[in-house]
């Protein structure tokens, strides 16, 4: 869950709970207050009218009393109650033609041994309307208040967390091999400044150790070249010495082979470091189809030797804007591997569509370790000619050009697919 979502979600849940609880509570409290007020009013009326009614009853002038207030009535009662009763009743209103709620006070009394009941009622319609209006206004106010808080908080959080997201974005784009300082901007928040300072320090240190490591590889590779060259030269001279026995010849040959392997390893390492040093910056338009066909032609003799059948299914062409040397490294390694790790009479399938190239070949019958094949010096074969650097170079070239490479083992064929489309960079605001 994203940070903003998390905080906003908590606020939202709190607001909803408060709203759901507050509205009924508010309603009942208001209603209670109004009822109390009405009841008091009824009792006051009763106190006011009761002596007058008693007097009227004694004088037999009750009918005159009825005349001035419809809400007050006196009738003979069959029962005698000590206490007054207050009830809410619904009475049919002949004018509005509907049931209308009333608050009714019934007070029993006796005059001359005759039982009477005094009923006073007050319509609740107006009061109920009032309560309803008050509650409505309050609800609207509450909702407005909460949404306002919600929006302000969201915007504020976004603003407050913005330096954090900018830092995150910069970190995501940070590449240790490129010397681009993070240049994190100052924020008004201490924690973010601390975070940025720590990150700055961390990336600086990482970059420094990366440089050290790279320099070491570079130097090691370069420094090794001269002794290897001397070794190879001396061996060639040793070959010329006479007399030479068969045993000596065999030993020399074996040392020579080992020296040769060292040379290849060395050359690959040097090449790898020059790829890392982005010495191949010049770009031109390259036809992938043309390049693949060029290497297939170049390796014609080797293909014939192994009796490998090439199935060329390159129907479309992909035109890249990239460094030619890098693309040649990429394609020569992949096609070379497809030939080298094939068996006699094997197959190679070349496929090219508008955004990807796939090279499949027969070979050993088990899948390669997908996680490790692109690692330096990881070798899946015991082939002495394999340096363990080829696929790392391929990966490096793909990384530089933002291509993606994947390996799949299907139908007993090892397949490498390069996707030439560059994934688009997302805007940071789309993400959060």
């Amino acid at each position, binding site marked *: 869950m994203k940070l903003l979502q998390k905080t906003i979600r908590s606020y939202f849940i709190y607001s909803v709970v408060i709203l759901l609880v507050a509205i009924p509570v508010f309603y009942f409290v208001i209603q209670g207050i109004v009822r109390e007020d009405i009841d008091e009013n009824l009792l006051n009326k009763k106190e006011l009218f009761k002596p007058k009614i008693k007097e009227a009853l004694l004088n037999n002038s009750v009918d005159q009393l009825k005349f001035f207030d419809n809400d007050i009535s006196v009738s003979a009662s069959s029962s005698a109650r000590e206490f007054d009763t207050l009830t809410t009743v619904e009475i049919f209103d002949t004018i509005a033609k509907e049931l209308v709620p009333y608050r009714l006070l019934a007070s029993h009394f006796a005059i001359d041994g005759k039982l009477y009941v005094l009923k006073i009622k007050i319509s609740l319609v107006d009061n109920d309307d009032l309560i309803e209006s008050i509650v409505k206004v309050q609800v609207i106010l509450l909702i407005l208040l909460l949404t306002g808080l919600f929006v302000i908080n969201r915007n504020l959080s976004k603003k407050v967390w913005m330096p954090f997201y900018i830092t995150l974005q910069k970190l995501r784009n940070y590449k240790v091999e490129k010397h681009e300082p993070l240049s994190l901007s100052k924020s008004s928040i201490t924690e973010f400044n601390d975070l940025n300072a720590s990150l700055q320090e961390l990336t600086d240190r990482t970059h420094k150790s990366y440089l050290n490591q790279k320099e070491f590889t570079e130097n090691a590779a370069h420094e090794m070249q*001269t002794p*290897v*060259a*001397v*070794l190879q*030269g001396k061996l060639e*001279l040793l070959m010329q010495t006479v007399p030479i026995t068969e045993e000596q010849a065999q030993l020399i040959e074996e040392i*020579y082979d080992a020296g040769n392997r060292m040379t290849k390893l060395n050359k690959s390492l040097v090449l790898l470091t020059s790829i890392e040093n982005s010495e191949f910056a010049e770009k031109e338009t390259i036809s992938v189809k043309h390049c693949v066909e060029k290497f297939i032609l*170049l390796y014609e003799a080797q293909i014939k030797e192994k009796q490998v059948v090439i199935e060329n299914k390159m129907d479309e062409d992909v035109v890249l804007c990239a460094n030619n040397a890098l693309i040649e490294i990429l394609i020569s390694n992949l096609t070379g591997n497809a030939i080298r790790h094939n068996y006699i009479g094997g197959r190679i399938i070349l496929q090219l569509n508008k955004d990807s190239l796939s090279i499949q070949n027969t070979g050993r019958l088990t899948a390669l370790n997908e996680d490790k094949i692109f690692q330096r010096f990881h070798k899946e074969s015991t082939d002495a*000619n394999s340096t363990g650097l080829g696929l790392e170079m391929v990966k490096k070239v793909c990384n530089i050009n933002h291509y993606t490479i994947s390996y799949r083992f299907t139908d007993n064929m090892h397949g490498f697919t390069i996707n030439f489309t560059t994934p688009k960079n997302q805007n940071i605001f789309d993400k959060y």
Partner: protein
Amino acid sequence: MKLLVVEDEKELSKSIATYLKQENYLCEIAPDFKTAIDKTESFDYDCILLDISLPDGNGLNVLKELKANNKTDGVIIISAKNSIDDRIAGLNLGADDYLAKPFHLSELSARISAVIRRRRFDGNKIIVLNEITIDTVAKMVAIHHVGLDLTRKEYDLFLYLVSNKNRVISKNAIAESISGEGADLYDNYDFIYAHMKNLKKKLTAAGCEDYIKSIYGMGYKFTI
């Protein structure tokens, strides 16, 4: 033929000189930039082997100096830096060839003879060895003045052997020379044996003496 080896690694320049002596080249050695400048100013060489990284200067400056003085010495750059930029810079400055260290001495020898042949102004680009005539421009071989039908690979192989005559050439060097970068795609070097067999068959059929000898499977030698 006079050669200058500009190389600071003593053992390497010594090996080069020893190997090339057998080709009747006269090899001089310049271990640093200053000596190289002194020597190139005073003498003319058929070919100069030039290391770029010298202790007291950049080898490319020797090349610049040569060109500034309108010298026509052939130049092969031998560099530990197999960088594209260096290669392009060297060739743009007028070097004839570029060889990355480490290299096979036989390869160096073949490159030197190619440079020297190309630089000859008398138009003599034909190699004659007893009954063998090699036209390096037309890439043709004739035995007793009768043209021999060789494939491109066989011709390259033959020229490589001849450029290193009387010396043993390792199978590795031959494989790399005739198949370039693709040499390591082969499981073994049996393909050389096949090419060599065909070449020898064609040569003997044309009446050429059997000069090519296998040395215990270690390599081949063209003895004349």
